[in-house]
């Protein structure tokens, strides 16, 4: 690992610790990390959009035209239409002409809606409805693995759960008697669903922490490997500087805390 690589990876390790410092309380190190992430992401996105979007999909398609003829003589002049619509979005910055930006927005929303409605309806509503109403194969019901078979026990749970869940969200009738019992079963089904989501979410959050531990381990192993031909004392000095900056802030915080407590 060269010194320049060490600096970047050390910055990454420092930002990891700075981000976790938020778990104690908001602080300047966390703010630096937070603003850096937002800034770098925005900058990266702009460059990606330029090189992956505008250059190949617009400029290169108009490249055989002449700028002084506004590319109208290119072989694909119709690409000027989306370019013009895109440019009109910038009128948002003018108080007098911001209304013009509604044209490209209207066109985009119109196309997106036209594309979305039939496909969303077919694939996220109808297909799910069909899946709820799959015929139960009773011969499979008592077979091996009926508990996890879509054609067996779980299909009954899905069907009953959907109906009971809908009962729970029907508020035009008091949830009493048989109706109330079914609605109660519905809320239990919902709670089981939320519980599964919560369990997955805990796993996701722990995964993020594990990844950081793994990265810090890799950083430590690579940075302080003395057999590295580029290794020098500067590696350790930079590391100490970062540790001291964090330690100094921790001391200041402890002093503040003690002062507050004494007061």
């Amino acid at each position, binding site marked *: 690992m060269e010194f320049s690589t060490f600096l970047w990876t050390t910055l990454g390790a420092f930002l990891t610790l700075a981000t976790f410092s938020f778990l104690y309380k908001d602080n300047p190190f966390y703010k630096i990390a937070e603003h850096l992430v937002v800034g770098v992401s925005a900058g*990266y996105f702009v460059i990606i959009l330029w090189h992956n*979007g505008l250059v190949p999909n617009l400029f290169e398609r108009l490249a055989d035209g002449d700028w002084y003829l506004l590319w109208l003589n290119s072989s694909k002049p119709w690409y000027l239409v989306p370019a013009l619509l895109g440019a009109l979005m910038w009128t948002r910055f003018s108080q007098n002409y911001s209304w013009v930006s509604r044209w490209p927005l209207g066109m985009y929303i119109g196309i997106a809606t036209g594309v979305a409605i039939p496909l969303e309806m077919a694939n996220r509503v109808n297909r799910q409805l069909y899946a709820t109403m799959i015929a139960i194969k009773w011969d499979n019901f008592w077979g091996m693995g009926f508990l996890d078979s879509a054609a067996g026990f779980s299909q009954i749970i899905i069907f009953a759960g959907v109906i009971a869940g809908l009962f729970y969200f029907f508020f035009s009738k008091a949830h009493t008697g048989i109706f109330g019992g079914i609605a109660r079963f519905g809320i239990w089904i919902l709670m089981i669903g939320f519980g599964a989501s919560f369990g997955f979410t805990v796993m996701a959050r722990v995964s993020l922490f594990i990844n950081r531990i793994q990265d810090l381990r890799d950083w430590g192993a690579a940075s302080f490997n003395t057999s590295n031909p580029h290794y020098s004392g500067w590696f350790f000095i930079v590391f100490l500087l970062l540790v001291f900056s964090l330690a100094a802030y921790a001391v200041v915080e402890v002093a503040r805390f003690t002062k507050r407590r004494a007061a």
Partner: protein
Amino acid sequence: MNIFERMMSLDRRWVFLFVALVCVATYIVPFEIPVRVDDEVRSIFEFIDTLRPGQIVFVAIDYDPNALAELHPMTYAIMEHCFRKNLKVIVTALSQNGPGMAEQAIRDIADSVRLDREYGGVKYTGREIVRGEDYTFLGYKPYYALVILGMGQDFRIPFPTDYYGVTLDSIPMMRGVHNYAQVAVVVDLSAGNITDAWIAYGQGRFGFPLALGLTGVMGADYYPYLNSGQVFGIMAGLYGAAQYEQLADNPGRAKDGMRVQVYAHLVIILFIIMGNVGYFMSRRKRAGAAR
């Protein structure tokens, strides 16, 4: 203040500290825990494992660095599996910061595939992964729904060039490859709404086999699509990635993290029990005092 009230008023930072200590401690001590493989992960592995050399796998790397922890291990396991099986891979990154994720993954996987390795008792000779022959990285384009629909007509509509500016017609593995009809399977590794678009606008419109790799947070929401047959496999969270690594006999960061997951969950369950016991006991005490 009795012990139950103390439980209720425990500063959350003690919980964070305790969980962190348990995670670090279990990570430092190397031991392996068994990983049970679910059918929904096995179906993805078996689908890819039974493809013929030269067939194309479409891998959509639709996540940003914030989901790297869970989805990168899936990307590594699946793509290395593909390259070892001599499959061709088309990669897209329809998330804003996805191209960086994809480039990093391709670079690291290429390094790994260079080495001779043995997976599941089968010896694989190391080889060089060649851009344009073994894989094509198409890159990023905005408005993922329209990009997914456009690729159904021709990859060249949204992507006249690959990520590196090479026209698709001049890329050897893209000759004769126009749309999803030439692709054996689409694997979407996603951390957001792009998955919905792959289901509705991709699989729903063009009918290709679709498998999902999801963050843990999303996992439970997408199981209904497995039941409806719209997707044939789901890997959810780090556990899903660990299962794929187990099947591919290629242990990576996901399997490495499983022991931490187990103990972190135990600690969290312990705190949940403590919180509930404290809540009910202090409620009983209040009720007793009111009487």
